[in-house]
C-alpha cells in the first residue's frame, strides 16, 4: 500500500492519496482538502462529537485523529450516507422525528448512531450510550433518540 512518501485511504468509497508527512487532522483533511464540509468542527477538543466520522466502521472524532495515521483505512462521512439519491434510513428517521434544529451536531449524531446500529445496538440504552459524547446544544436529544429507536 505505501509507496515512498505517500499513502492512501478510502473516503466514501473513493481512494485518496496523501503525503505521509501531512500534519493535518482528519477533520482538516476532509474539510479543506476534500471539501467535504458536512463534517463539523465545533469544539476542536474531542468533547462534543460534532466531527464524528466512521473509520473502518467505528465512530471516531475527526478533530483528534491525524490523517497520516490512516493509511489503508476506509473513512465514511455524512456525505457518503445517501445511496443513489436516497437517504439512509437513519437520515430519513431524523427528518420524520424532527431530530434536527440548527443542524450543526446532526452529521456527527447520525454517524455515531450509524456506527452503533451497524455494530449491533439493540436497546435504547445502547443508543444513549453511543451518543452520550455528542452534544446537541439546541436540545433535540429526545427526537434524536426517537429517530434512532425507530430503527431498532
Amino acid at each position, binding site marked *: 500500500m505505501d509507496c515512498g512518501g505517500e499513502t492512501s485511504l478510502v473516503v466514501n468509497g473513493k481512494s485518496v492519496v496523501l503525503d505521509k508527512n501531512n500534519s493535518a487532522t482528519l477533520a482538516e483533511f476532509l474539510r479543506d482538502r476534500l471539501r467535504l464540509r458536512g463534517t463539523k468542527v*465545533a469544539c476542536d477538543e474531542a*468533547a462534543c462529537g460534532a466531527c464524528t466520522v466512521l473509520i473502518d466502521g467505528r465512530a471516531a472524532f475527526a478533530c483528534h485523529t491525524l490523517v497520516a495515521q490512516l493509511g489503508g483505512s476506509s473513512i465514511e462521512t455524512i456525505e457518503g450516507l445517501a445511496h443513489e439519491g436516497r437517504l439512509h434510513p437513519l437520515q430519513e428517521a431524523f427528518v*420524520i422525528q424532527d431530530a434536527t434544529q440548527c443542524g*450543526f451536531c446532526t452529521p456527527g449524531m447520525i454517524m455515531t448512531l450509524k456506527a452503533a446500529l451497524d455494530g449491533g445496538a439493540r436497546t435504547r440504552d445502547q443508543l444513549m450510550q453511543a451518543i452520550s459524547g455528542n452534544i446537541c446544544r439546541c436540545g433535540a436529544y429526545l427526537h434524536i433518540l426517537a429517530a434512532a429507536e425507530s430503527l431498532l
Partner: protein
Amino acid sequence: MKMPPSAGARQDAGKEVGQTRPRASAVLKVSGAPIFPSDVHAEGVVHAVLLRSVIARGRVVVFDPTPALGVPGVLAVHGPFSGEQMPGIAYRSDASIRTRPVIDAEVRFVGEEIGVIVAESECAARKAARLVRVKYEKMRALVAFEDPGDPAAPTLLPVGSVAPELDEVMEHGDLRAAEAAADVVVEASYHTSAQHHNPLEPHGCVALWDSDTLILHDGNQGGFLIRDQLARTLDLDLGKVRICSAYTGGGFGSKINLKPFHVIASLMARKLQRPVRLFMSRQEEFVASHHRAPTKRHIRIGGSRDGRIRFVDTDVIGQAGPSVFFARNAAGAVNGLRLHKTDAVRARIRRVLTNTQAPLPFRGPATAEDIFCLEQAVDELAHALGQDPLAFRRANLVKSDLFSGLPFAGNELATCYDEGASLFNWNWRPPRSCINGDYAVGTGMGAAVYDATLYEESQAAMVLDAGGAFRLRVGITEIGCGADTIFPQIAAEELGIPSSSVKVELGDTLTLPRSIDSTNHSRTTAVVGPAVRAASRKLRAELLRAGAEKLQASTEPVSIGPHGVFLARNPSRQITFSSLGALTGGIAVNAERETGPEGVFPAMFAAHFVMVEVHLPIGRIRLRRAVCAHDAGRIVNPRLAESQVHGGFLQGMGMALQEERVMDLRSGRQMNASMWAYRTPSIFDAPLRIDFVDAGGFDAANSLGVKGIGEPPLIAAGAAIANAVFNAIGARVRGYPMTPDRVLAAIRRG
C-alpha cells in the same frame, strides 16, 4: 415520507397552519449539505486569529510582533500601536457614541481583543499569535460583583460614553399597606450563575470586499441588525454592506449583535485585499463570546391566610461587565412582577460594572434569572401558608398587565395550569413524602410570563415566478427554530396550496426584504408571520385577477386550487400556476406587517411540572419527567413547537442543574473555558419524557393569532425543578445551578 400524527394539533387548525410538516431544511441538514458560515470557501482566503488580553484590567505597554512575523505564511499583524486605530462599535443610532476601539491598549477583562494576526493558514496564524511579545501595566481589577462599592476600583466607563443609568426601581401599588395585609412573610436570598450560550458553531465570519462593497458570510441571528451596526461603525452606506447568513449553528442570543471580530475581519480584508476568515476557538467562545450574567437577589414575599399574594419586594444585583452598552442585560425583574396578582410590588435593580466580559441576551434574558428565583419564593410562600402550590397560583391569576394596566391580548395561564396538571397527574404531597432508601422523589411546578412587546415593521415578498414556482422571500436568519418551515405554511394556508410547493429564501440582506432586524425575544413568528400572510393574500388576489383574465372570466367567480386557478362552476377549466407564471412572466408582491394591536398587552405564558429524583448520599439530581404547558398563541407546526420546548427546557435544566462559569476572582480568568469542564446537558441528563402541552389558542396579539415559543420553555424550567427538589428533600436549594455540593449543603442545613 410518512410524518407522525400531529400530536397536539387543535381543532382550529387549518390545512397548513396548525399541522406538523417536516422541517424545510431537514433533508439538507441530515445530508451535511447546508453551507454554514464556517463552511464558506472563498477563493484566496486568508486566516485571522485574535490576540487577547491575559489580564483583567490595565494597559498594554509593549506589543512586539517581531518574532511572530518570522513564522512562514504570516501576512499582517495589527496591534494597539500599529498606526491607524480601528474604530469602536457604533451600537447606537448616534454614531459618535462608540465602544472601546475593537483593538486597543486599554484592557478591561481577560479575553479582550488587543491584536490580530493574519496568515495564509489558521495554523500559522495561531502559531504566530503565541509568539507576539506583550507586556502589560496591570491595574486593580473588579471581578466579583458582590462588591460594587470598592473605593479602590476606578470608573470603568470609557471616555466619551454615555452616562450610566444602571440603577432602576420598579414600583406599583402601596407596598406599606400590602405588607400590613400580609399574614405571612417569607424572605430569602437566591443566586444564578453565569451561563454560556456555547453554540456548537463558534462565532465567526468570512469577510471579503467586492470593489467597495463589503460582504460578510456570518453566523448571526439576523443580518439586518449586523449590517446596520457594521455600516455605522465603518461609515459605509447601508447598500455597501451585504450580510449573508443562510444557516447559523446555534445562537441562543449570543449572535444578535455586531462584535469586534466582525469589524476586525472586515478591516483586515480591506487592508490585504483578500477574503479573511476569522472564527473563534472554543476557548474564545467561552471567554469572549459573552454569557448570561450572574445575578443575586433577595426576595421578600408576603401573603394572607385567604391564599392571596399581597406583595413582592425584590433586591436584584447583576454583573454588567466593563461598559454600559450591554449593562441592561445584567439583571431585570419586570416579568416576574407581572406574573401573579399582587397588591403591591417593588424591585430595586443594580447592575454593577466589573472587569469581566459583558453579558449578552441569553434565551429569556434577565427574565429567566428572575423567574427561576421568584417562582421559588412563591412556592416558599405557598408552603408557609400550607397550600398546594398549584392551587395557590391558581388563586392568584392575573387579569391585566401590572404596569401598563392593559388587559392581556390573550392569557391562557389558567389553561396551562389545568391541562399541564391534568397530563402530569398533579397530586401534591408534602415535602419528603417519597423517600426510598438513598433516593428521594419529588414533584414541583413553576409558572412563567414573557412579554411579547418587541415589535417592528416587517416586510415580506411572495413570488410566483415565470417557471411557475412559489417563492417566499423573507430577510431573516434561520437559526434552527423552524422559521424556514412555518412561514411557507402560513403562505400556503392563505394561497390554498400545499406548503411543500412554497420555497423559502432567506439570509441575505442585499437581495431580500427587511423582515426583522434580529431573531430574538421569541418574536419572529409574531413579527414576520403577519407580513408573510399579508404578502400571500396580495399574491392570491393577483393570481385570481390574472387567472380570471387568462380564463376570460371577467364576471365569473374563479378559485384557487393546489395546481392553479379555475372557474368556480367548472373546475375543469383551469389555468395552472406554471402556465400563469409563464404567461405573466411572474408575479411578485410585497407586503408590510399589519398594524400591531392596541389597547392590549401581548404576553406568553407557561406552567411546567416536573418530577425529580435526588440521590441523597451524593446530592445528585435527575429529572424523571417534565410536562411543559405553554400559551404561545396559535401553534403553526406542533412538531417543531415541541422541538423548541424540548430545547428550551433542556437549556433551562442546564442552567438549573449544571452550567456554571467558574472564575478565579483574583486573576479574572475563567477556570472552565472548555466543553470538557463546562458541561452542557447530554442525553443522559435529559428526562426520558418531556411532554409539550399546547394550552394556547388564537391570540389577539396579531391577525395570525400567534405568539412565541422560543424562550418561555427555558424561563419556566428552573423553578419547577427547584421546587421539585424541595418537595423531594424538604430543603431549599436557593443557588443555581443546584450542583451536588449545594444540594448536600441544603440537606445538612435542613
